[in-house]
């Protein structure tokens, strides 16, 4: 797969979000402003990535794979932080931070797949 700036930025934000939430969880802290911001950062990044993808396509960009598969990943990735937030907030314990931490790393995996769809892959998975 081709590694572009979007994937690198997504990997940094997603992993930083996961690490932040995991550290808070290990310290037995309940979700606080810091971990909520970490989760919100993932959501904002996906929204920015979606907007930028629209702009790139409008400027003559091209998705190598199936466009609806790409947008399916975008929609799912955008829904994950929201779902994780509600699921975590239904019961506020330090475990909620682990739940929120699971979102970041999942989005990183999805970013890798989205990069494959956008640029195409030389060897089929």
């Amino acid at each position, binding site marked *: 797969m081709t590694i572009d700036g979007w994937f690198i930025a997504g990997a940094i934000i997603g992993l930083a979000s996961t690490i932040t939430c995991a550290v808070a969880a290990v310290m037995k802290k309940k979700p606080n402003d810091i971990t909520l911001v970490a989760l919100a950062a993932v959501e904002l990044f996906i929204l920015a990535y979606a907007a930028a993808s629209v702009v790139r396509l409008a400027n003559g960009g091209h998705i190598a794979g199936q466009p609806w598969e790409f947008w399916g990943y975008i929609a799912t990735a955008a829904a994950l932080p929201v779902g994780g937030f509600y699921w975590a907030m239904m019961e506020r314990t330090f475990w909620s931070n682990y739940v929120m931490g*699971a979102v970041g790393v999942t989005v990183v995996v999805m970013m890798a797949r989205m990069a494959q769809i956008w640029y195409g892959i030389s060897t089929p*998975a």
Partner: protein
Amino acid sequence: MKNTPSTPADDVVPSRTTGAGRLLITVYGVFAISASARAGYQIATQFSDAPVAYLLSAFAAIVYIAATISLAKPGHKWAVAATAAICIELLGVLVVGVLSLLDAKAFPHATVWSMFGQGYGYVPLVLPLIGLWWLYRHRAAASR
């Protein structure tokens, strides 16, 4: 005041769906979504390539959905359902894992369980073990 020795301990036994259970349900939920999306995509676009592998993908997706829902629901019956779903999941990842090792040609198209879930960081292999351990830990709480 009547004092039954078991009562205080009963009250502190956490339910299956709280604490670490929520994280377990989260991970199952992520697998349910990704397995369903993958199976749906495979069947919609390239079903004729490998119908068996893609039907297996769909079966895996259904098992993950069943496990997620039954883990999230309180009560003894749902615990039994979750145990059944996770046993099927464990059996699936072991059988498909062994088959994909022995006869790679029969499984040229990856499913979530191929090579014991290698493509998913072996999480599909570890997840049912953790799930069964979690259910075993909470068997007393579940039976009430």
